[in-house]
Structures are given as C-alpha cells and as structure tokens.
C-alpha cells in the first residue's frame, strides 16, 4: 500500500460525494483577453471588505490621497486595511449599500479620482532575505484577504504555527460563467508561482498542489510551464463538477482527507489559498503594490461584450456593466458572484470588492426566474447531489418546523450553501434559502442564550453587591447609633431636632408605603401620561429650535433658547402636574417657582432647577396617582391638553394649599416662629423646620378634607 504522499505524487485524484454538472458557459469570456477599464467617476470603497473587523480610518473627507495609500489601518489581527485604488480626493465617508446579500448600508469611503494615478513611495521586498514577520506584516498591510469569495484575512491563514503538509492552491473555479482565475493563470502564471514561493517560505509545506478543473486546459498548461523548475509543485486537473472548488471538496479531491467537523483544514496539515490570493501576495511583496484591483468576469446575455475586466476595487457595478454594453431587460436580475452561490443586487451602485469574482447580468431565457415552489416529493435528488452527504429533504422539513434540535442532529451546520440541492430539486424549492434562514435563526438564538447567561451573571453579581452594601450600611448605622447613644448618654439631654427627624422619617415611610405597591394599571396610565408629556416637550423643543432661526437678531444665542425652553418645560410640566397634586404638595410648587425664576440667570442652574421642579412634580404626581382612583387621572389627562385650564386649576390648588397652610400655622404660631428663628441661624435646621411645617400643613389639610 503506497503512502498518501506517494499516491498524491503518482497523480491520484479522489472523488467527493454528490455534486452537479450545471452547463459551464465559460466560453463567452474565457477566450478573450482581460480588458482594462477606464477610471470610473467615483469609487465606493467599503471600509470592510473581508471577514473580520474594519481598520481604523486614517483619512477624512476632503483629503487628497495617493494611489496605494492606506485609507484604514489594521489595529488588530482581524482587521485588514483598504487602500486608495488610485489617486484622488476623499469626497465623503458615509453609509452605502454594501456588497452583501442583505444590501444593508455599511460605512463606505467615496473617492473621486483625479486621473493622475500618482503612486505613494513603494518599497519592494526581497522575500528570500526577509523574515516571516516582515512578510506577514506586508501581506496584512497590503490588505489581502481571500479572493475566492470568503474573504478570510490571508495573513492569518499564512501565519499558522501548526506544521503544514500540503499547500493547496485553489484554481478550480467550478461555478458556471466565471473565468477570472482562468484568465489570471493564462496571463500571469509566473507571478502566481512567485506568490506560491512566498507562501511556501511562510508555511514550509511538503508539497504544493494546484487544483485546476479540466475545462481550463490553457490555464493548466500555463501553470505547468511556470512550475516546471519546482519539483514539489504539482498541478492537478480535477474533473469538472460543481462544487469541486469548495475548500473541503477540493481537499477531498486532492488528498482524500476530510476536515473533521468543527475544525479547520490546518488541523489536518492543509492550507488552501486561492490562486488570485497568491497573485496578490506576489504583487504586494515584490512590487509593494497593495490589493487595488482584481479581475472580474462580467457575463450574461444582456451584455453585448461579456468579458473579463481588470477593475479597481470600489468600481460601481453599473460602471462595469456599462463598460460591457449592458442592455437591461424589464425585470432584470444582476447577480454578484456565480449563478450557484451569488446574490442578486438591489442597487447597481454597489462596488466591486476584494471578493467579487463575477458580475452576472443574465437574460430571462438564460437563467429563468424560479417559478412556484411545489411540495417536496422526497425524491432525494438533493441528497444525491449534496457534497456534504446531508439529507436536505429532512433539513427542509425541520427548517420549516424551526426544530433547532433536529437541525443540529441532521448537521445543518455542515451545509456549505453550495446550492447543489436546490439546483436539482424538481419541485423548485429554494432549499438553500430555507437553510440560511434557519442558520441565521440558530445563530441568533445562540447569541441570545449567551447574552442571557451574561445578563444572569451580571444580575446575580449586582444582587450580591447590593446585599453586601446593605449589610455594610446597616453595620455602619449600628456603629453610628451606638456612638450617638453613648454621646447622648454622656450629655443627658434629649434633642427636639432628633424628634422632628424621627417624625419626618415616619412620614416618609408612610409615603413610600403608599407608593410601593402601586397598581399595574396605574403605572401604565402614568407611563402613558409621561409619554404625552414627552411628546409635548418634543414639540416645545422643536418650537424652541425654530424660534432662533426665525428671529436670529433677538434670539441668536441658542443656549439662551435652550434655557428658555427648559424654563418653559418646567413651567408647563408644573402646570400640568399641579392639577393633580393635592394640597400637601403645594409648598413644593411654591418653592420651585423662585427656582424657576432664578434659572434665567444661569443656564446650568436653570436646567438643574427645571429638573428638580419636574422631579418634584413627578413625585407629587406619583403619590397622588398611587392613592387616587382612575377618574382623577383622566381629568389630569384632559387638563394637560389645555394649558390654560391647567394654569387656572394650578392657581386654585395653590390657593387652597395656602389656606390650609394658614390654618396650620394658626394653632401653633410659637413653634413656627421658633423654627423660623432657627432657620436664620442654620440653613439645615431651616430645611427641617420647613419640612415640619409642611408636614403639619398636610395634616391640617387632611383633617380639613376629611
């Protein structure tokens, strides 16, 4: 039995399960040379064009940039920078439709080329004498990410520490229509091989396997000729079958190994790079030319000149299509990527990015739009076509039922979304779409489960902390109380102030008792009310904002306007709230009037005062609402709508309170006077006195009301 390596050297090719044979349709583009596109008017450069995170932005709108100048900087290993594909001016940095199936906007840099093509200074490296770190940094700084479609950062894949047996160069290009890699190999085989040399220096593999589908004989011959000096570079032609260009499938084809589930190829000693990536590495290291452009196959029957185009990254798809003579149909589909895995574009201003290998503009006869989905007849053609040996018809069933456990049992996670199942389905069921939705749902659930776990941990930690603090406080209070008692014992005198304090405390306790157990309905009603207030406030704010615009001379200072708005807000709120406030609260309203008045002097103070006023009013409202039945709330509600009425009501309420206060003061004028006297000496004492007075007033009012 010859060893695996011997078998590979002998040229054995294995097979993988399933696969389909869609018509390749590559002739329309693979026979023509690569066309170079003139500079487009605008370049849309998404800040993130790979799997990972965007780099830190280095430029701002209005900046002049040179060709090849980095626009973002990679600040961690998952970041890959983007560069200016040509010299020009940064016009804007804004969200723009992303080249992603979702078409959600992502941060994109808009560059206007100046047509000068001025390069930044370049420093080519000699890769034979440079150390690995320098090379890896160069690869990362040149913005290279997997160009086969996934866009995984290349420096991570090339910087693995595990031993690597085989470096596989993926030049299979199994999707119909696409011939970008084919043309690259036909035209730049020697540069590609130099790129492979650099990868070999980084990875040190036993052998390099270059997988090319057998429908590209010219490219295979070119690669073979370029590799003939290197004996461990093995060019292998694989039979044309979709999806032999899938990473796992190509590994199985060339080495008969399977990547264990949940692991990466490097765990079994294999690293795979796309042939375009190898080319980009050679350019980055040997010419110091970062990834600025790529070959894109532009194909489809609605184009008069389907061809491969060397397009700058950021070129809008519309420009690319126009360059190839696009004559759209009435309900045109434009697909980014191949017909099997590509996604339809909603907007042609989407740019070409690092992973864009094909733009497809098919006619309706060429790729008919799907008709109505029929029921699954369990013919299991999909299972026969599945390269991962899954059971798509079962997965469909469980995806529709959202049965995540069963989906996991049937290994949905191993689906590579190649589309072979949906391609063969006689009932035209969009199977892959169902799986994608199910996968997204599962991912979301996992994310949520993780979040729930974190939230629970944080909640428990918080509870523990609160408990601890409570205990500490209790201990401290005890100590303090003990100390005070000792002091009191020592002095032997009882304190009237302490008495008053105790009484206030008792009252506060009463109040909180009343507010502690509010009815749910009441809270909701209150929320509703608050929302109403918020809306009013928003309107006022808007009014305040428009005012200075209308009268720039008188109200030029927006800060002053804000203060005015705050005052107005506070007053409005007060007016609204005071209707429902009971007599007991009127001292509070009385006190915040001067506060509100004084606020005009200082904007900050004004804001604080307004806030305090609102807080007080709110508290009053809360206590009132908590104790009073629903009808009153409704009156309060109606009163908020009419500020005039509210003001009148407020005035009435205040008058009543004053009367009550007057009653309160008459029985015990002496103590009040004493309290007033004390107030002059000590502001703190004064406050206490005021509180006592208020409490009394309330008591009085209560007895009167009853």
């Amino acid at each position, binding site marked *: 039995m010859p060893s695996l390596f011997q078998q590979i050297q002998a040229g054995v090719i294995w097979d993988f399960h399933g696969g389909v044979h869609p018509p390749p349709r590559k002739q329309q583009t693979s026979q023509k040379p690569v066309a170079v596109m003139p500079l487009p008017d605008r370049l849309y450069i998404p800040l993130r064009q790979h799997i990972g995170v965007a780099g830190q932005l280095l430029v701002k709108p209005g900046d002049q940039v040179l060709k090849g100048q980095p626009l973002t900087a990679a600040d961690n290993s998952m970041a890959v920078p983007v560069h200016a594909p040509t010299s020009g001016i940064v016009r804007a940095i804004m969200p723009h439709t992303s080249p*992603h199936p979702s078409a959600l906007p992502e941060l994109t840099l808009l560059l206007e080329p100046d047509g000068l093509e001025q390069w930044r200074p370049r420093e080519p490296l000699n890769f034979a004498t440079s150390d690995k770190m320098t090379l890896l940094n160069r690869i990362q700084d040149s913005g290279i990410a997997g160009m086969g479609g996934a866009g995984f950062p290349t420096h991570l894949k090339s910087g693995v520490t595990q031993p690597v047996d085989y470096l596989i160069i993926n030049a299979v290009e199994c999707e119909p229509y696409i011939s970008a890699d084919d043309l690259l190999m036909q035209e730049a085989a020697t540069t590609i091989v130099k790129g492979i040399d650099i990868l070999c220096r980084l990875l040190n593999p036993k052998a390099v396997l270059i997988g090319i589908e057998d429908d590209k004989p010219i490219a295979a011959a070119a690669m073979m000729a370029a590799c003939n000096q290197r004996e461990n570079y093995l060019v292998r032609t694989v039979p044309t079958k979709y999806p032999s260009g899938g990473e796992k499938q190509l590994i199985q084809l060339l080495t008969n190994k399977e990547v264990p589930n949940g692991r990466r190829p490097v765990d079994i000693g294999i690293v795979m790079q796309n042939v375009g990536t190898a080319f980009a590495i050679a350019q980055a290291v040997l010419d110091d030319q970062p990834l600025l452009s790529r070959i894109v196959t532009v194909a489809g029957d609605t184009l008069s000149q389907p061809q491969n185009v060397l397009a700058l990254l950021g070129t809008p798809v519309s420009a690319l299509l126009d360059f190839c003579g696009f004559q759209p149909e009435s309900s045109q589909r434009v697909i980014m990527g191949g017909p099997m895995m590509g996604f339809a574009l909603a907007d042609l201003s989407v740019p070409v990015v690092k992973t864009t290998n094909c733009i497809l503009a098919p006619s309706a006869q060429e790729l008919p739009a799907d008709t109505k989905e029929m029921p699954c007849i369990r013919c299991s053609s999909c299972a026969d076509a599945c390269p991962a040996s899954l059971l798509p018809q079962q997965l469909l069933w469980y995806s529709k039922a959202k049965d995540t456990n069963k989906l996991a049992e049937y290994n949905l996670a191993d689906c590579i979304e190649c589309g072979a199942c949906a391609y063969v389905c006689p009932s035209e069921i969009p199977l892959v779409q169902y799986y*994608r939705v199910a996968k997204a749902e599962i*991912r979301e659930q996992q994310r949520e489960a993780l979040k729930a776990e974190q939230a629970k941990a944080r909640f428990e930690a918080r509870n523990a902390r609160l408990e601890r603090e409570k205990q500490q406080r209790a201990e401290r209070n005890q100590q303090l109380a003990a100390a005070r008692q000792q002091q009191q014992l020592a002095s032997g005198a009882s304190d009237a102030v302490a008495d008053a304090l105790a009484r206030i405390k008792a009252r506060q306790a009463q109040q909180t008792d009343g507010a502690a157990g509010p009815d749910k309905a009441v809270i909701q009603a209150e929320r509703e009310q608050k929302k109403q207030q918020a809306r009013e406030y928003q309107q006022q704010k808007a009014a305040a904002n428009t005012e200075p615009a209308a009268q720039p001379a008188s109200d030029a200072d927006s800060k002053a306007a804000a203060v005015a708005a705050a005052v107005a807000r506070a007053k409005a709120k007060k007016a609204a709230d005071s209707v429902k406030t009971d007599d007991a609260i009127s001292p509070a309203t009385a006190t915040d009037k001067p506060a509100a008045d004084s606020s005009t002097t200082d904007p900050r103070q004004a804001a*604080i005062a307004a806030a305090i006023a609102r807080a007080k009013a709110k508290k009053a409202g809360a206590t009132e609402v908590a104790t009073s039945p629903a009808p009153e709330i409704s009156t309060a509600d109606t009163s908020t709508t009419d500020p005039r009425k509210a003001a009148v009501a407020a005035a009435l309420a205040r008058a009543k309170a004053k009367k009550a206060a007057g009653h309160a003061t008459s029985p015990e004028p002496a103590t009040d006077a004493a309290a007033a006297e004390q107030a002059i000496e000590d502001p703190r004492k004064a406050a206490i006195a005021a509180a006592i007075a208020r409490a009394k007033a309330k008591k009085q009012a209560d007895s009167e009301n009853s």
Partner: protein
Amino acid sequence: MTLLTALIALGSLALIFGAVLGYAAIRFKVESDPLVEQIDDILPQTQCGQCGYPGCRPYAEAIANGDDINKCPPGGEATIRKLADLMGVDAKPLDAAQTEAVKRVAYIREDECIGCTKCIQACPVDAIVGASKLMHTVLVDECTGCDLCVEPCPVDCIDMVPLSATPERWKWDLTAIPVKVVE
C-alpha cells in the same frame, strides 16, 4: 377460600412490585437540575418584570409552581416552545396583553442627562455607567432592553431604540430588501 388466595396473591404481588419500584427509584435516581434552575436557564434573563414578577428567577419559580408559561415577551415564541417541552404542556401563544417586541436597547440622550443615578440603580444588569452629577451612558452590549430605566428617569432622557440591523445579524429576509427602481 379462593377469594382469600386471590387476595393474598394479588397483595403479595403488589408488595413485591412496590418494593422493586421503590428500590429502583432509589438505586437509579437521576441527578438533575432542580426544575426551577432548568426553567431559569430557558428564560432570557432580561429581568424586565413584564411577566409580573420581579425578575426571571421569581418567574421561573412561579412556573414551577404552575403559573402560565406564556408571560415572557422578550423570550417570545422560542422560549415558550422550550418551556412547553420542559414542562410537558402545550405551547400557548404569548399572553394577549403582551406582544413580542422587536429587540431594543436603552439610549440616553446625553445632553439632557442630569446625572441623577436613578437609572443606574434601576438597571438590573449594571449596564448603565456614570456617576452622580455626571452624564450616564448605556453599555449597548449588556443592555437587555428591559425598560426598567425609562420609568425612574426624572428628565425623560432615556429612549428605547430598536437595535440596528447589521449584515452579521441579518436573517435572510429577502423580501425586506428595498429595491432601487431606475427608470
């Protein structure tokens, strides 16, 4: 006499089986999480109190004691289904009064915040940072969207904003993509 024999036979059989079952129950006892723990693990831990209980764990206890399983709006349908599985009851639709809302997080309008720390005290998961008299802000990643901070804010500067969609979290809803129509 035959009656007696039958009684004795059946009685002894009952005793024997009873003993075997009793022994098996002790011998093969399955150690598992107490029910409350399992329920608590299913609940989304937003601690929002929308179920009428002060937090997820109290609700878990209530479910274990027979309360309805359909009172958790943040968990939505998925949670109800899991709870139904665990409790061996039929899944019910979400309580009519409560609707499953889109995921939202709190956002503090920072220019209006007066630094009162009330929201910090209200937050069950310590997702708001700030100090007295200083502006507060919400840690979006930790916020569970429970709404509890909105109520205490004296100046109404907290909004609940829906989480913005990102390509990573996108759920492949192709019909929702706005298509640009070019004439």
